[in-house]
């Protein structure tokens, strides 16, 4: 990796301000790295011309003393975000050729603040997956490999392209989205930092919808400070998304380095699951010790409905997906496969356009919403969701400031894992520690905390109170200071 791509966003920003190099030079360094690492399949589209044009404009603004908070910083954009005039397909064949005539609010915020777009990042189709293997554009390879083993590993999903690109230094930071763990699980699998903010913190406008009551965007970056810098730009209230919340976006970076003395951190008994590797448990204990050393008080807590979160999620998310994805009918955009009449055109288009995992989830969603089953499944799941949220509310009311858990039940697994291919539920279990957070609408951050015996990164998760992302950055920074940072050999 070059000296320029080694820098964090904070370091690059300072160097650009000091005129040590230009944004064009930084951008060219990333474009060269992207080309050299096409084998990872992290980008599904590189936009070098657009990137250089944006970098030159940034250099002019820097020279004029009009630099924005992300001026000249090259970023990768998950293919779920609408980018005007540029490929936006949620890595699905059904959006074949789609080039939006509008820009998502989040990417618009990033460009407003001076960021440079390098290209569109690979992901699981419609963000449905935990390994980035459901993408129409093929799997992403994790830049990490186990020591002495050449086997290719998955980067996690659905934001697998984002996490792999950040870890391999193919962008300074990336946008991502998280419906059940799609930011935090890939961050944990690649030794990067990822935050899913509180539901409503970021606008969902212009993000291809999967499950609207759970979807939330956030950044993936190489350290905690960069994550704070990116979220500050991404978050906003938006008249075009009525679920975006009108609460001032704090200066998250200011909370980094502040003492955590006296903070109360909860450790939930229910996250100690059967079959969890000892290394994960040891990592968790290390995290507890680091926070105690920093002056936090660590208390045992109970979140009794934890084990019901994932099955409830697999009712709510597919139900919402079956409704959201009804729009792909071959009429207004994307793929059309002809048929003898309009209904057979719909059926042929959707059969060819959607991959197997997306089809499966649409069918589950259609079933649980169908006449006679709505109360038994959907209403039941929404009631369970109330109980899951109540578990967290009770703990926070008792004075707990944040909750510490493992981010994932394992380290990154192999590409084309046979067990997971044979049993969809096995793949779903990847999100066992992250999905509760979406169900309750809370913020959660994954921060790298160590390597396992094979040299693969493992992450811890911190869960916060609604709109208290600042505390998560504060605590995550303590873990980062103690654990150090982790980079693959690329």
């Amino acid at each position, binding site marked *: 990796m070059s000296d320029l791509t080694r820098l964090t966003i904070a370091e690059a920003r300072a160097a650009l301000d000091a005129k040590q190099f230009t944004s064009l030079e930084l951008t060219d360094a990333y474009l060269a790295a992207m080309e050299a690492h096409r084998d990872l399949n992290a980008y599904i589209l590189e936009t070098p011309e657009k990137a250089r044009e944006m970098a030159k404009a940034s250099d002019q603004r820097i020279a004029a003393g009009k630099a924005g908070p992300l001026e000249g910083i090259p970023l990768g954009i998950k293919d779920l975000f609408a980018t005007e005039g540029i490929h936006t397909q949620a890595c699905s064949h059904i959006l074949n050729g789609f080039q939006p005539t509008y820009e998502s609010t989040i990417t618009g915020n990033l460009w407003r603040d001076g960021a440079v777009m390098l290209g569109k990042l690979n992901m699981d189709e419609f963000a449905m997956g935990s390994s980035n293997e459901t993408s129409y554009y093929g799997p992403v390879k994790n830049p990490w490999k186990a020591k002495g083993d050449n086997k290719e590993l998955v980067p996690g999903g659905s934001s697998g392209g984002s996490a792999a690109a950040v870890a391999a230094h193919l962008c300074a930071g990336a946008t991502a989205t998280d419906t059940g763990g799609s930011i935090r699980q890939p961050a944990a699998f690649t030794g990067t930092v990822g935050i899913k903010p509180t*539901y409503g913190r970021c606008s969902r406008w212009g993000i291809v919808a999967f499950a609207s009551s759970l979807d939330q965007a956030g950044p993936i970056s190489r350290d905690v400070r960069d994550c704070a810098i990116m979220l500050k730009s991404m978050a906003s209230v938006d008249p075009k998304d009525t679920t975006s919340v009108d609460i001032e976006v704090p200066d998250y970076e200011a909370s980094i380095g502040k003492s955590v003395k006296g903070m109360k951190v909860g450790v939930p008994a229910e996250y100690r699951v059967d079959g969890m590797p000892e290394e994960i448990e040891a990592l968790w204990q290390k995290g507890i010790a680091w926070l105690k050393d920093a002056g936090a008080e660590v208390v045992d807590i109970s979140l009794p409905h934890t084990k019901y979160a994932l099955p409830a999620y697999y009712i709510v998310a597919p139900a919402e997906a079956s409704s959201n994805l009804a729009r792909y009918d071959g009429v207004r955009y994307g793929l*059309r496969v002809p048929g003898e009449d309009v209904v057979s055109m719909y059926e042929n288009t*959707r059969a060819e356009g959607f991959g197997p995992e997306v089809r499966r989830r649409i*069918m589950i969603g259609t079933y649980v919403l169908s006449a006679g089953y709505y109360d038994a499944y959907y209403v039941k799941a929404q009631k369970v969701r109330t109980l899951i949220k109540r578990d967290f509310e009770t703990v926070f009311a008792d004075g707990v400031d944040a909750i510490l858990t493992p981010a994932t039940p394992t380290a990154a697994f192999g590409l084309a894992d046979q067990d997971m291919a044979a049993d969809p539920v096995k793949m779903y279990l990847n999100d066992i520690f992250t999905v509760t957070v979406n169900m309750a609408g809370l913020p959660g951050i994954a921060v790298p905390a160590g390597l396992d015996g094979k040299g693969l990164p493992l992450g811890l998760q911190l869960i916060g109170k609604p709109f208290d992302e600042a505390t998560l950055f504060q605590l995550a920074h303590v873990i980062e200071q103690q654990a150090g940072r982790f980079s693959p050999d690329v």
Partner: protein
Amino acid sequence: MSVDQATVRRIARLARIRISDNEVPKLEGELNRILDWIELLGEVDTENVEPMTSVVSMQMRKREDAVTDGGYPERVTANAPQSDDNFFMVPKVVE
């Protein structure tokens, strides 16, 4: 609850996804595997529990009922697989 092959075909029809005969048994197995697992929720006592309607307690913002956007049909139809004179084209629906 579980699905049989006739139900799998009915769901696919409702979802407007064409499935071939040889896909039906595989889908039946996969859907039942997921539905079996979801049955775990039966253990939870949800008597007197309100179903969640909004994950964040907030008042929905409202705005004046006025046109704030539009007037560019060519942009709306720009990505259509088939369009004519700013209309979406579909196979003939009425004889």
